């Protein structure tokens, strides 16, 4: 029984990791005032690029770095369109998703079914991983899981305790005031979108280099959209993003444990999406303080000197 519990918790944490990476990136992007609905596309491109590079170089780290770079590169398209050319952010995000899914299908066509020679292996932390139940579940994961956990306080500290983080939030709350504070809003927004895309690429890289590990077309399976919803649920706070992704990790794994009870797998597959809808409602109706509201200028294009 404890073994089952350990494995459920362990798998749930692994399943939550791509959601956490993606959500942290989208939090950074949206805190700077740009909404990027292209997470699904950036994730897919990250997954296929990471796998391709890992496959050819036999190095999971090079693969992961390539995944991050690929996500960031695709996000750069969004940054140019929405920040420099002030295009509609919803539409540009959809374009990114479409483009990313198409590119990943084409790049990955010769990689389908190939085994990865170099996945990220489990790296049990000494002592901690020997604790009963939770020890093995929490501390016997691969290194990317630890990295995603470490990114939570790191992003929180960056956003709320550094000058640069303040500039990001100012660009998202009131870009005109930020500009008056001598923040280069255009630059801040561009860089936030690109780094946010890097996080989405990392999420994809985690899927294809550690979680599955293989390249399957369409392997992101809507996780990018769950990330967008989780960002709203998280109230743009990295700590809540951790709670949200862990919940969804449990749901992803839970559906497999419910299957033997004769419930249609297709109905169970709806669960994460229905739960995301519930989380959206919760996020939208939660009573909140000032810092938990959506960035005031989210979705609005900014043009220097013009109100």
């Amino acid at each position: 029984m404890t073994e089952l519990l350990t494995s459920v918790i362990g798998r749930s944490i692994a399943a939550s990791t791509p959601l956490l990476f993606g959500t942290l990136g989208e939090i950074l992007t949206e805190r700077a005032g740009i909404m990027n609905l292209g997470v699904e596309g950036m994730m897919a491109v990250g997954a296929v690029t990471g796998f391709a590079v890992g496959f050819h170089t036999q190095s999971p780290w090079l693969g992961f770095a390539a995944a991050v770079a690929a996500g960031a590169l695709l996000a750069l398209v969004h940054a140019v369109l929405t920040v420099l050319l002030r295009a509609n952010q919803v539409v540009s995000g959809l374009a990114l998703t479409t483009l990313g899914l198409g590119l990943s299908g084409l790049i990955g066509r010769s990689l389908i079914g190939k085994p990865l020679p170099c996945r990220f292996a489990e790296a049990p932390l000494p002592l901690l991983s020997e604790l009963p139940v939770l020890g093995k579940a929490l501390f016997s994961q691969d290194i990317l899981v630890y990295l995603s956990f470490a990114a939570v306080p790191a992003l929180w500290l960056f956003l709320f305790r550094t000058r640069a983080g303040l500039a990001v939030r100012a660009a998202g709350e009131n870009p005109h005031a930020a500009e008056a504070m001598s923040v280069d809003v255009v630059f801040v927004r561009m860089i936030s979108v690109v780094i946010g895309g890097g996080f989405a690429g990392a999420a994809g890289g985690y899927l294809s280099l550690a979680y599955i590990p293989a390249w399957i077309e369409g392997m992101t399976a809507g996780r990018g959209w769950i990330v967008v919803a989780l960002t709203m649920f998280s109230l743009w706070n990295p700590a809540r993003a951790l709670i949200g992704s862990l919940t969804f990790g449990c749901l992803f794994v839970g559906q497999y444990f419910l299957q033997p009870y004769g419930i249609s797998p297709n109905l169970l597959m709806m669960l994460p999406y229905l739960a995301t809808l519930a989380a959206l409602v919760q996020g939208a109706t939660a009573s909140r303080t000032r810092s938990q509201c959506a960035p005031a200028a989210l979705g609005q294009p900014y043009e220097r000197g013009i109100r």
Partner: protein
Amino acid sequence: MTIHRWQLVPVATPASLRIAVCMAASIAAGLALGGLVFLLMGIPPVTAMLKMATGSFGSWYGFKETVTKAVPLTLIGAGLALCFRARVWNIGAEGQLLFGAVAATCVGLHLGPTLAGWPGIVLMFAAGAVAGGAWAAVPALMRIRWGVNEAVSSLLLNYVAAEFVQYLIYGPLKGKTQFGFPYSDDLPNALWLPTFYGSRLSWFPLVLAAAAVVVLTLISSRTRFGYDVRVVGENPAAAAYAGIPFGRTILSLMVLSGILAGIAGSSEIAGLHHHLTYPWSISSGYGFTAILTAFLARLHPGWTWLSALLFGGLLVGGDIIQTSLGLPFATVNIFNGLVLVAILAGEYLISHRLVRRSAEGGPR
């Protein structure tokens, strides 16, 4: 000495010619970028694109296939164009289409031989329209009641709808006459839409799509509702002052576009498949491609048929390079995505003009 420099200045109301030229250039640029991707991936771009072009527009058969795909794109795209004008983001047309298909199939199978022919067909389409509209009402009501972002909620409902269709075809609706395939039973022959000779194109949905274009164009240009839609989109604050009911506008637009998507779903069942099948076979991503269709038409319902033809052609071309060059079907998304990126960038060129002016003393 005066210094002259080039500057981009906004154009308030761009001329139609300027729009047409910029749009054409954007589409060409998007397709050219797609060719560049092919080149980088080691696929001969000219061969591939010629195959796509001749397969979709180069032959009578190919053109009929293109029109067959343009019909659902026009139906859905016209509705979405109106939605997007009001900045109501219905990204869930795919799910609304699927629910329309489910309802039409259920009605068709139930009616069976009792109500054959046109009354039965009309009833099927009506059921599909109601189901599509009802599914679209969900994100609208979530937006009105709780302030939930309708783009994300309507998109998530696509996944729910796709799983629901699969649940039906593997479970309750699984046909007894389909040799174990996960399809529903076939509709009775009397409920199949008549097709043009030698094609899969039915005239009934074609007429409906044409009617949708005309009616929505009139609604958007001639009615109070169309005016409300524009104001809500351009200036929500002004709309509130003018007493335009925001919630009712959202709900009407979502339901209207859902109805059209439901009709498209019904026509895919009654005209092409004749049974409920895998969700990805019922719709080859029409709900998403219709979003691009609406944008290429610059959110004018009256132009959706033209942009639907282009994207219909791309879908047919995608099928062709899939079989002849062994490329994954997703490849066509590269073109779709790049065309949309190019249109977004082109929008900037439409609304801005390059002028040379003196740096000092000139008008701002």
